[in-house]
């Protein structure tokens, strides 16, 4: 039997909660997934479904305040990041795991040059001298496809266009040569032509460096284009998880089905079918399934018992009573 290789990232029962004036809010609720080397995992969901909170919990960008609590395990190459000291965590951020944030317009510091901000990464992680770090920054800027890198490096973020800035952010994220890249809606703020260029760039990088990528998006088109695996999040939970091909051809969860039905199709003149209702308020979650109020197939059980994420087939997991019961019946 071949030795089981440790996954690059293994998240187990990650739960992130905030204490607010109106009570405890679980933004991420018992989320588990793995990402292997060279694999791209897409995390899909509406705004407020806990996607970004998941990524920030992994990097421990939240959890330091008293009102924030992150529980569970985040095993990066077998090491639980949630147990590390802040100082050890600083060595991992930007070096082992990097982040590309959603809005390139605000993720670069306006008072420092782009080159300076990229150069900071080798300076803090590899002890590069200013001069060497600067050459590295120029190299990175070239690598992400920004022309006249030497000139661009010395410019400030406001002198860059949106797409250029996102390339700058990506250059910054890659300067440490990370094993895991978390891309939090990297193309949302960009127009479509730039979007595909950025996705292309992310794919190239995966192919070149073999890094694992966690791609957070609300755009199923993006998922279909570049992801290997996909997890659908709703109200802080993963409701369905499968390979991309499987999920698109055979969506099981009513929410996923709704998401796919609300996508426009080329040549189809019928009206889009939106999912009725609104995402639930995390302050007032019922004890049952969070999707129950919007679900066309809702049953009595859904309102009282929370469905667990069950292995429907080995690689396709769904958290839905409907599917799980059917599956259960079949097994009997």
């Amino acid at each position, binding site marked *: 039997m071949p030795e089981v290789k440790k996954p690059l990232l293994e998240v187990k029962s990650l739960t992130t909660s905030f204490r607010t004036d109106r009570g405890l809010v679980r933004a991420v609720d018992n989320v588990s997934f793995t990402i292997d080397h060279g694999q791209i995992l897409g995390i899909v969901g509406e705004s407020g479904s806990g996607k970004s909170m998941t990524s920030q919990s992994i990097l421990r960008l939240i959890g330091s305040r008293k009102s924030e609590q992150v529980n569970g395990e985040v095993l990066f190459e077998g090491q639980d990041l949630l147990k590390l000291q*802040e100082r050890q965590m*600083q060595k991992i951020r930007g070096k082992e795991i990097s982040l590309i944030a959603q809005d390139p317009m605000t993720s670069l*510091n306006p008072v420092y040059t782009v080159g300076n901000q990229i150069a900071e990464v080798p300076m*803090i992680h590899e002890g590069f001298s200013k001069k060497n770090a600067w050459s590295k920054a120029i190299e990175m800027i070239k690598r992400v496809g920004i022309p006249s890198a030497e000139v661009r490096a010395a410019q400030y973020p406001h002198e860059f266009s949106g797409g250029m800035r996102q390339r700058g952010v990506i250059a910054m994220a890659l300067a440490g040569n990370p094993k895991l890249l978390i891309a939090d809606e990297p193309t949302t703020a960009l127009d479509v032509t730039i979007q595909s260029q950025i996705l292309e760039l992310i794919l190239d990088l995966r192919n070149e460096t073999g890094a694992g990528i966690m791609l957070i998006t609300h755009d199923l088109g993006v998922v279909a284009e570049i992801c290997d695996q996909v997890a659908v999040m709703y109200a802080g939970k993963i409701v369905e998880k499968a390979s991309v091909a499987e999920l698109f051809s055979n969506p099981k969860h009513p929410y996923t089905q709704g998401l796919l039905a609300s996508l426009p199709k080329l040549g189809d003149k019928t009206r889009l079918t939106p999912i009725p209702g609104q995402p639930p308020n995390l302050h007032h979650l019922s004890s049952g399934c969070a999707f129950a109020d919007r679900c066309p197939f809702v049953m009595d059980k859904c309102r009282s018992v929370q469905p667990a994420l069950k292995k429907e087939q080995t690689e396709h997991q769904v958290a839905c009573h409907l599917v799980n019961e059917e599956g259960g019946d079949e097994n009997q």
Partner: protein
Amino acid sequence: MFTYILRRLLIAIPVLFGISVLAFFMVRLVPGDTVTAMLGTNYNEAQAEILRQKYGLDQSIIVQYGLWIMNVVKGDLGISSLTNEPVFDILLTRLPITLELSFISILFALLIAIPLGTIAALKRNTPVDYGASFFGMFGISVPNFWLGTLMILYLSLHLSWLPSSGFVPLSDGVWANIKTMIMPGIALGTSVGAVTMRMTRSSMLEVLGEEYMKMAKAKGVTNSRLIWKHGLRNALVPVVTVLGIQAGYLLGGSIIIEQIFSLPGIGQLALQAISNRDYSLLQGTILFIASAFVLINLAVDIIYALINPKIRYS
């Protein structure tokens, strides 16, 4: 940049012209005139008439203004009726004292405001933050003359640590000079520090929530580097503006403080000029302070461009 500075200086000309009009006419609204003040109890009409002729006060007020402003343009602020010295020379001898006082006040204000404001923002809603807020309210509410008087009472009369008043020039020893400047500097700088601290705190709080701070942290930047390198420079942009306005007011605030601590600066000079109805001296002082205000604001805008790369003047 150069053309920008030039343009700003040109814009300052009508401003200063307006101030000269105000200064000239308002000074003359004060009951009594130079001559009555000079003669005091020996006042008699004949003598007064001679003096009025001597200082040109017998002419119409418009003509007086015309004559004065023509000389001002040539760089001649007139002769003080009190000391018979050129006003410009008097201002130059008094200027270093006021400048030193302003400098020490601002230094004191900054040394307190920047670290305290930053730490208060970091430790938001903790006792540290409440303490800083208390200092902020205290510094803004407490009149500087009261603070100055209390310091004289306690630090000078009670503890004898510092001289209660008087001025020692720098040439008589740096420490001796600074000793006379510490209390007035603190008295004057406290409110500036309080306002600046509050601005630093709120500005820093805003910066801490910015996406680029999260990104810098995600790069693996240490906490201290995150705050002092990535955060502070951004937070300082509005702080500099506030500080610039405050620095302008320091010149005005120093009138009272210089009086309390017997510092022979511009502020004290203005007060003397008023009580003696020394028109040329008072007009000259007002115009001088106004020009200083304009120059400080220009300096602030230039510093602004240095810390905020988005601003490039052309």
